[in-house]
């Protein structure tokens, strides 16, 4: 599968994106099983230190190991992004497939609403709803998934509307193949070239959105870690001559986003 993708997308965007993302995901997976320190363990004897061999990225004011927390935070951010994309793309595909294939009044109404919602910056909408609901991982996932649905729905709808007019679908219909089967087996695989880059960019946007929300303090809660939350905390350290915290956390965010955006770009190009 991966080899097939590499053959199809033989460009440096895809390669670089794939390796950066694979590296980050691997790091995060390792972080789920093992971190140098307990990310929550506090140690008054090792407060606010710069990077050292004992603490690769230094420690924060509670003496917690920043490297361990970055691993956990990146994991948390990725998990949030994963569920946001899963729900957003899943529901978006469902809505888009149904409306695109069947058309009609429901299609018209739903697409008007989607148009209306995509016109308003999704991050802004998420920010407002989240600020009202209050912080928490589940809230972030729910709200971001919700605001991501319309963009996926629109992409998928266009494709379904286009493909349903093609000959092979009419043929399939004549053969008496059930509609769900046509939707799933005959059309869905053929929209992958469009859906895959969108999913990758979706990850990119989800990481960015989660980081922004948590940075503003409306994302995850205090006892949950996330990169945005850590970056927001780290600002105080910069002013006190400890810029490392912010730099490491910022770079982690950049790498995550870079990986997904390169991957999305690579998937879009067919050479």
């Amino acid at each position, binding site marked *: 599968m991966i080899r097939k993708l590499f053959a199809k997308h033989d460009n440096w965007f895809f390669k670089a994106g794939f390796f950066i993302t694979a590296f980050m995901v691997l790091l995060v997976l390792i972080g789920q099983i093992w971190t140098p320190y307990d990310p929550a363990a506090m140690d008054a004897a090792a407060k606010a230190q710069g990077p050292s061999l004992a603490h690769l990225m230094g420690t924060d004011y509670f003496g917690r190991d920043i490297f361990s927390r970055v691993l956990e935070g990146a994991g948390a951010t990725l998990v949030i992004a994963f569920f946001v994309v899963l729900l957003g793309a899943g529901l978006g595909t469902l809505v888009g497939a149904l409306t695109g294939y069947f058309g009609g009044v429901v299609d018209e109404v739903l697409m008007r609403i989607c148009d209306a919602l995509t016109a308003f910056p999704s991050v802004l909408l998420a920010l407002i709803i989240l600020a009202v*609901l209050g912080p928490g991982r589940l809230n972030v996932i729910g709200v971001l998934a919700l605001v991501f649905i319309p963009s996926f729905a629109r992409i998928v709808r266009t494709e379904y509307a286009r493909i349903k007019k093609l000959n092979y679908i009419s043929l399939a219909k004549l053969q008496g193949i059930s509609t769900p089967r046509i939707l799933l087996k005959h059309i869905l695989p053929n929209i992958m070239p469009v859906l895959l880059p969108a999913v990758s960019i979706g990850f*990119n946007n989800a990481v960015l959105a989660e980081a922004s929300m948590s940075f503003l303090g409306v994302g995850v809660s205090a006892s949950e870690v996330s990169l945005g939350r850590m970056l927001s905390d780290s600002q105080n350290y910069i002013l006190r001559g400890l810029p490392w915290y912010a730099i490491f956390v910022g770079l982690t965010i950049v790498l995550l986003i870079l990986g997904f955006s390169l991957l999305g770009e690579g998937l879009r190009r067919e050479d």
Partner: protein
Amino acid sequence: MNFVLKKLGTLLLTLLILSFVAYAAFEMVGDPVNQILGTNASPEDVAALRESLGLNKPLLVRYLRWLTGFISGDLGDSYIYRIPVSGMIGDKLGVTVFLTLMGFALTLLFSVPLGVYGARREGSWADRLLTVVNQIVMAVPAFFVAILLMVLFGVVLRLFTPGSFVPFEESPGAFLLYMIFPALSIAVPRTAMTAKMLRSSILGEMQQDYVRTAYSRGHNRQSALKAHAFKNALLPVISFMASTMAEMLAGCIVIEQIFSIPGIGRLLMVSISNRDIPVVEAIVMILAVWVMLVHFLGEVVGEMLDPRRRA
């Protein structure tokens, strides 16, 4: 005409959906009465204030009352401050609009030359380098850029004083100096995206038949680019710029927090935590109108520039 009506319909629908979502969301989390009265108030005082603000009416009644007010041009009074919302928003809106426009202007200033240069020198080492740098810069969130800029220029180099925003009326110079850094923060990631977009759009146009015809008529690459491709390549870029404007507005909310700029983004965040629904509603409506208007303008300009339509 049909086109305009359709757009107008979408705009109204958006406003209706957004305003109701905002109202309904607040229904779940309660009202500002406790905030206004503090921790030492008696339950009777709380009930009395709730009554006087009309908060004991059902959601739909309050929403419709707000809606009719809004339609007749009355933004209502702030629950917290009991002063007209329009007065609270006034100056702050100007600041945010200025910040967005300045960010937008900076984006144009840098992205257009970069995009054109990349397209002109396609494949050269400079173009490759630009592409790589672009791709990386695109991945840097605006708030991270903001932190870096503020620390570097504000705390280390002391070119400006973070936290000492000066209103335009007081000193236009100091105002501009203060705004340039937040504007840069929102412009940097967007510049990379726009440059990339423009470059690939121009290259796409260069493949078109009419440009090839121009080649065959003796135009070289440069003049073909100048005469034909650039203009047409701007078309997709313009609609992209419209969404840039919208995203920048969202970006402003974060940036205003970091740089302590008294814009509507900060007012929005504070008003949300204050449960000051009239202010939140007004700002959401303004943002929505602004965003829709920009999209609309983008499409109109696109129509005007489109050669297929002109003919």
